[in-house]
């Protein structure tokens, strides 16, 4: 399938569907890779926070002391 983009020229009102150049395809792949990296970091941070919160809850129930990182998930 050919990669395309929509270009809307606001000065003329003309809308065209344009096939991507090789440079644009490369940029698109770079964008996807950059986004995947940022998203992976976000998900990792989210999972780490959830794990700390779960651990903090278990320790509270068991009457055990929390680490500073675990306490940070409960106290704003």
């Amino acid at each position, binding site marked *: 399938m050919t990669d395309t*983009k929509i270009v*809307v020229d*606001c*000065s003329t009102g003309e809308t065209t569907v344009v096939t991507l150049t090789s440079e644009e395809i490369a*940029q*698109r792949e770079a964008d996807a890779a950059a*986004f995947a990296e940022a998203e992976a970091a976000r998900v990792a941070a989210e999972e780490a926070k*959830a794990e700390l919160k779960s651990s903090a809850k278990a320790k509270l129930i068991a009457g055990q002391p929390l680490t500073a990182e675990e306490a940070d998930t409960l106290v704003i």
Partner: protein
Amino acid sequence: MANMIPISTTTVGSGGVSSIAFTGIPQTYTDLVIYLSTRASAASDSVGLRFNGDSGSNYAYRYILGNGATATAGTGTTTYTLGGRQPESTFTANTFGSASFYIPNYTSIYYKSVSSDGVSENNATTAMAQLTGSLWNNISPINSITIIPGSGNFVQYSSATLYGIRKY
């Protein structure tokens, strides 16, 4: 009194497209607004903006995000503004997400700020809602905006509308 004036709108046709670009943006408004109704063809539910074709790491962002189970916040720098959300390919069929971007003082000779909100749609536990503040570290007036999905294409019937705000 501010007036919100439609500049251009477009709807994606059969086969989808990798991006949507508004070019030749008039420099006669004070602010710009973009409204999106989109869906991704791939397993990526993000949507962002690129200004004047600048693909450098010149876009700083800070966000707060809820996914239905947990809330997170983060900050970073990337090659286009983040902020929009849309259903990814595995989300409930025939649903489209909503996102809006507000770009004040887009003709100024200062760095450009962007505030955005976006939600995906999914009849399941996980669906995203995100608020984002971004900064394009560039002093050039904005004359083109490209709307980019995190990966894959915007599917057919996705739409984008650009408005200008006139404060007089």
